[in-house]
């Protein structure tokens, strides 16, 4: 099936990526021949997303705004099978990581990416990284405008941008086009939210200085309403202010969130506006023709309204309890009546969160071709999304996903855990994440109980860099190393919902690895004992505070 519903490379993109493959092939050859030292080579491989981790090289592949065609997903599966161990890890930045790549194979792997309009450029280094988006973009019922059009504009502007290739630190942008934020925009360096003002015009709220990591911060709004055609000028102004004033003397204080925190949101706004005033009518002003040309590529598939109440679906709901639960948790409303958005859970009981084998990726690609117009999305919650499924096809899609092990009815539930790769793979980690996630997942595997507990987001990071977003988990779990022992710090009350974005509060002393499940069970029991009708875990926590949870987890001593 052709890729008709989102951006396809033009000759310029193709030439750029092709040149990069050739350059990297030569760089790898010279490194293997001993003509480049590791010191010389390291920045070159990182520029192409190739890290060296505990056991092997890891290739981080950018999935622009989390959108994939079936053809691209099949190619990722083929690369994983040919050059890795037959599986990959979908990340919280909507990327795919292959953890067992050989250096000598890396140029061939990225050449295969280029064949399907993909690359691994700018997935490392102090530059603008892959711009992320709402994974329901182009399909969500609450969407004002498809954010991917703007993500693509940002991608083209930021790719190899000479002024912003050596920023003080890495830079992450997220865009949502819906009031219900599914892209966590308030915890990004820049978050952009499309909204409609009183004059019925659509523009961006510009949020700057959010982020997780060592010093978590919620972003501050520095522009309530930015006309869309001024986006790039405003971004350029913001990056320019950051590039000028951001700290380069201390790695841990180099992110834009520290700058915004130190000078204040108002001063940041003044600096950006002053810079912006000098360039607002520059070549960066987007012409309607430019925007329309890109928007045309994101034209949604033609979906005709269909039956919203399908007897076969209703019958299966009665016959199959797991299917009924799946409809509740994994199926979301679509903007076109009679269609739905399906989330394929990459969190079957006890599995490493976000991992998919090549066979599973190919299976999802087949399902997308058969029932979702060849489209797949990667969510920052490490699941795959089929954005355009007819309601009458849901039973078939469910059965097909079930065969792949991706039909677990747990999206948004306690076992839909975000976890970074942790100390099993990562050179930065202090503690393991995946085995902890697996134990929690196995403990709470029973679906009826998960649905009784309701929406509860557990997020696990293996170090303070917070790739597992633990600060914004309803329950956050951070692995730390204390004198060679893995301990896990628990936090409560984090959230990324727009208007309710909050950082979790540490509950108390870190617990040993084998006590984590017990502690989570104690927190869940506290919630179940105190909740009022309709309250989610995090709502109850907000109402009753941390003390009852603390007493249950640690006792009264």
């Amino acid at each position: 099936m052709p890729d008709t519903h989102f951006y396809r490379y033009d000759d310029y993109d193709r030439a750029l990526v092709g040149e990069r493959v050739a350059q990297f092939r030569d760089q790898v050859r010279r490194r293997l021949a001993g003509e480049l030292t590791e010191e010389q080579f390291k920045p070159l491989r990182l520029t192409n997303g190739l890290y060296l981790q505990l056991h092997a090289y890891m290739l981080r592949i950018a999935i622009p705004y989390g959108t994939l065609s079936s053809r691209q997903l099949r190619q990722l599966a083929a690369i994983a099978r040919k050059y890795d161990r037959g599986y990959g890890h979908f990340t919280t930045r909507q990327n795919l990581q292959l953890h067992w790549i050989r250096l000598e194979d890396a140029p061939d792997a990225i050449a295969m990416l280029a064949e399907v309009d993909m690359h691994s450029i700018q997935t490392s280094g102090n530059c603008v990284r892959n711009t992320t988006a709402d994974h329901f973009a182009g399909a969500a019922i609450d969407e004002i405008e498809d954010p991917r059009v703007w993500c693509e504009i940002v991608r083209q502007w930021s790719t190899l941008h000479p002024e912003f290739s050596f920023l003080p630190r890495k830079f992450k942008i997220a865009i949502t086009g819906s009031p219900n934020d599914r892209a966590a925009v308030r915890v990004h360096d820049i978050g952009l939210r499309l909204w409609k003002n009183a004059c019925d015009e659509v523009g961006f709220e510009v949020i700057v200085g959010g982020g997780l990591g060592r010093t978590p911060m919620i972003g501050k709004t520095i522009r309530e309403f930015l006309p869309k055609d001024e986006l790039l000028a405003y971004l350029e102004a913001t990056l320019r202010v950051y590039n000028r004033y951001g700290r380069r003397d201390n790695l841990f204080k180099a992110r834009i969130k520290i700058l915004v925190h130190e000078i204040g949101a108002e001063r940041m706004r003044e600096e950006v506006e002053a810079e912006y005033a000098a360039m607002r009518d520059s070549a960066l002003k987007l012409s309607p023709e430019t925007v329309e040309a890109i928007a045309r590529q994101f034209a949604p598939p033609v979906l005709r309204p269909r039956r919203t109440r399908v007897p076969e679906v209703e019958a299966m709901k009665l016959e199959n309890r797991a299917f009924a639960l799946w409809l509740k948790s994994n199926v979301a409303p679509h903007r076109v009546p009679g269609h739905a958005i399906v989330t394929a859970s990459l969190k079957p009981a006890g599995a490493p969160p976000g991992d998919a084998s090549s066979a599973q990726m190919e299976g999802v690609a087949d399902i997308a071709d058969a029932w979702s117009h060849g489209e797949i999305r990667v969510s920052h919650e490490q699941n795959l999304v089929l954005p355009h499924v007819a309601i009458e096809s849901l039973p078939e899609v469910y059965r097909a996903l079930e065969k792949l092990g991706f039909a677990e009815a747990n999206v948004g539930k306690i076992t839909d855990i975000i976890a970074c790769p942790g100390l099993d793979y990562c050179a930065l980690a202090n503690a393991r994440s995946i085995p902890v996630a697996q134990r929690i997942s196995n403990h709470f595997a029973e679906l009826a109980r998960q649905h009784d507990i309701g929406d509860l987001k557990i997020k696990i990071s293996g170090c303070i860099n917070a790739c597992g977003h633990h600060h914004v988990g309803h329950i956050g779990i951070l692995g730390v190393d204390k004198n060679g022992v893995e301990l896990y710090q628990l936090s409560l009350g984090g959230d990324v919902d727009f208007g309710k974005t909050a950082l979790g509060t540490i509950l108390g002393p870190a617990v040993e690895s084998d006590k984590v499940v017990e502690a989570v069970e104690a927190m869940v029991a506290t919630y179940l004992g105190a909740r009022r009708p309709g309250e989610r875990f995090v709502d109850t926590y907000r109402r009753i505070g941390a003390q009852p949870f603390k007493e249950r987890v640690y006792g009264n001593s």
Partner: protein
Amino acid sequence: MAKNLSGDMQVASANRLSDGAVVFLDDFGQWTRRLDRAALARDKRTAEILLARARAEAASVVDPFLVAVTESGDGVLEPLSLREKIRASGLTFAAIAAEAVRYA
């Protein structure tokens, strides 16, 4: 960068350049995948020499460093830190796909 020059027993480790695999320097100056064949430094001075030798043999590896280990009564070496135990032994959970394992 010298690490773990604490006086513990140490071995020299690195990642292999071609594929990143964890390797250890043996008594013959060769890099081996097997920790049980690693050259063992039993004191700080020997560790410094071992590290210097590892760096001299670094053409096929990346960033050699020292790893603190313990030795059991029957001579089995084990890294002290969890990180190095995982480096030496591999993942602590079963990876999702057994299929297409080309480089196991």
